[in-house]
């Protein structure tokens, strides 16, 4: 469009010139600060662990950390590779789960909640509501590359598949009892808890809400989708909570598996 708005505002009128960046008197900078710290901590931990290429598989109990699932490098412990291995060895900079991690990262990177979180805290657009942002120009997600955020739904589909893989890992781990066969240890509970919460996070996704029901206009005529939409909506209102909880459970799960795998702690058994 070449047009401009008809001088929308009457000539001579201008905004109130208030030089203060904000007149807010509360501690508005706390939330973005905590977000930055939280996200950085997770990323640093994740990076270190993904590149460690060790302590990912507690062979005695069949615990595989989600950071290495599916384990597809040739170096992978054979029993840990539930979906087979590639014929070549991975260099030090390539995580064994190179097939899933990038997508999980993209899934979370394009997640509507994380977008909010890092736009505010890291990109500072805006740092907090009614606080002037430091950028000269702003085009948001309207241009390349940010327009790519619209691909979120495709990462969601992939994330669904990865959630199935993680579930499979967690279920398999149930059949590594001390005496062989079915058994439950603390590690199983950790893995299962993590998987359940991952499902909560994945299913509470906004794209999920849209595909399963939101896109329909007449709910009266599609009762099943309406039901699905209602359920997903209930989860969706807690999407932010799940986003943070799953970061924590991922770290806890991974750490636990690492500790058991490295023999630092032994896994308390509950049954067999």
């Amino acid at each position, binding site marked *: *469009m070449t*047009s*401009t*708005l*008809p001088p*929308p*505002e*009457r000539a*001579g*009128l*201008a*905004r*109130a*010139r*208030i030089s203060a960046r*904000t*007149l*807010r*008197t509360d501690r508005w900078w706390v939330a973005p600060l905590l977000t930055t710290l939280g996200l950085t901590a997770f990323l640093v931990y994740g990076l270190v662990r993904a590149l460690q290429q060790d302590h990912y598989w507690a062979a005695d109990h069949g615990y595989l950390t989600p950071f290495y699932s599916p384990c597809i490098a040739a170096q992978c412990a054979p029993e840990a590779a539930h979906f087979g291995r590639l014929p070549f060895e991975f260099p030090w900079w390539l995580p064994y789960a190179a097939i899933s991690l990038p997508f999980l990262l993209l899934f979370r990177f394009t997640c*509507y909640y994380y*977008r*909010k979180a890092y*736009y*505010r805290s890291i990109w500072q*657009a*805006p740092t907090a*509501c*009614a606080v*002037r*942002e430091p*950028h000269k*120009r*702003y*085009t*948001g*997600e*309207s*241009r390349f590359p*940010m*327009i790519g955020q*619209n*691909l*979120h*739904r495709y990462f969601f589909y992939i994330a669904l598949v990865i959630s199935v893989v993680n579930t499979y890992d967690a279920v398999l781990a149930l059949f590594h009892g001390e005496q062989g066969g079915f058994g439950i240890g603390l590690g199983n509970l950790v893995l299962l808890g993590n998987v359940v919460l991952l499902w909560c996070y994945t299913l509470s996704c*906004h*794209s999920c*809400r*849209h595909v399963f029901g*939101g*896109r329909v*206009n*007449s*709910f*009266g*005529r599609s009762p099943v989708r*309406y039901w699905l939409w209602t359920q997903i909506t209930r989860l*969706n*209102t807690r999407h932010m909570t799940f986003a943070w909880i799953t970061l924590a459970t991922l770290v806890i799960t991974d750490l636990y598996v690492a500790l058991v795998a490295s023999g630092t702690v032994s896994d308390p058994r509950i049954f067999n």
Partner: protein
Amino acid sequence: MTKRTFNVWRGDGGAGALAAYEVEVNEGEVVLDVLHRLQATQAPDLAVRWNCKAGKCGSCSMEINGRPRLACMARMSTFAPDEAVTVTPMRTFPVIRDLVCDVSYNYQKAREIPSFTPPPDAKPGDFRMRQADVQRMQEFRKCIECFLCQNVCHVIRDHEENKESFSGPRFLMRVAELEMHPEDTADRRAIAQDEFGLGYCNITKCCTEVCPENIKITDNALIPLKERVADRKYDPLVWLGSRIGLRKGADTPLPPNTRTTTATPEQ
């Protein structure tokens, strides 16, 4: 009854400053009451816009201690006893005088959205819609057009130049509402992105935070609209379909002459 310090922005045409007043405050009062007392006792020409004094009309939008709020719903008891209260006009819109802004931007944006378009053969009384059908949109229709969300949205608050290409949360929400209407036949998804600037929104949720009607603008309107736009514009199958002429339905264009006009208002 206690005395409080009120710093009120006074001025016009962009030139102005905070003026300090010592004013009486009684139990149960809201900021608007105090402003009215200022008018009646110390500043008879203090310009404030208000109507209902019950949070229903959305006239009394301003910024109180830096937060966009309705003055008639800001209870004095929520401030610390010795805290000074600073009241300024909305920052995103030009000031007419004191606390009153020119909000015509919003009416201009409202006028650019293609209206509700029922099926051509439908007659009044034909619609059969379930509560489930209307409930989603009813949330958006709670909007009292206070324009606080428009004011707080950083896309235009911090970037005047974006006003042309961005309609703001209130009106993107209106587009979402029409798109969800079971009896509507227009398709505004393409213009939502290209003309109303949905892509500018980075879903940082300030609009939701300030909405006095507690409408979940971002979660229930803007994100679902982004998803619908993705259906239309960023779906490879749809893209292919429209390339080879298989896509059904047409994009509704911007209503002609609503942004630029070819005539004067009163010919």
